[in-house]
């Protein structure tokens, strides 16, 4: 049960982040930080189907995390879900076509190990 929830969280978080990145890249770089312009950008982003999908997956991930906390300790939940840093980097490469240099790989691995240690 615990590991099924961990898998669900990692999968849902990954989908949420991939969709959010796709949606925002499709929207284009936000460069005008005046309040009116930000409001207009928000209105456009709210109609973006990728962003809607990402919010749906975020909700799934949030409730699965709450469910995990009801059957496991926080000190198990956080390090187990740190795996998503590695999974997401792999998929950022294959699906989003980001170029992951050796330096970035090393950074992502260090962060994943660090998050697991912090939560111990």
């Amino acid at each position, binding site marked *: 049960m615990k590991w099924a929830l961990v898998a669900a969280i990692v999968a849902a978080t990954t989908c949420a982040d991939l969709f959010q990145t796709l949606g925002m890249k499709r929207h*284009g*770089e936000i460069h005008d930080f005046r309040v009116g312009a930000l409001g207009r950008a928000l209105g456009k982003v709210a109609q973006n189907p990728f962003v809607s999908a990402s919010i749906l997956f975020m909700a799934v991930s949030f409730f699965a995390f709450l469910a995990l906390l009801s059957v496991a300790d926080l000190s198990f939940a956080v390090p187990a879900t740190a795996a998503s840093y590695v999974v997401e980097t792999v998929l950022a490469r294959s699906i989003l076509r980001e170029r992951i240099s050796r330096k970035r790989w090393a950074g992502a691995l260090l962060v994943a190990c660090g998050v697991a240690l912090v939560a*111990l």
Partner: protein
Amino acid sequence: MSGYGRPLGLKTLLVSAVVVVSNVGGNALLSRGLKGQGAFSSGPLGWLSIFLNPWVAAGISLLVLWMLSRMTLLSWADLSYVLPLTASGYVLTVLAGKFLLAEQVSWQRWAGSLLIVAGAFLVGGTPIRTTGGRRKAP
């Protein structure tokens, strides 16, 4: 002003700082407000009353700011760049626990924080964006 291959600039630095601080602050306020509420056993009215708690309301507002600032950052930065960089929030939580709440911090936690800082530094030295596509919103 193209984002392609650009090193860490002021705009990215500022928005990343907002992402990290709003996340850490939002979670801290939320946990402060939920502690001792016992709302999970008190039915739908208990759930509703949670949102009237000023700590919880402030926490949720900060988490909304977190989501919006992260989306802004992702409008020009790689996901594989944003993820490790914004993980520095874990370190901030450890520091807050140590210096604001006078918690005991174990050596594992310090070691983990060091790894996260090192990882964020490594990733911070890579190009912000490695994909093509539209550079500016129409």
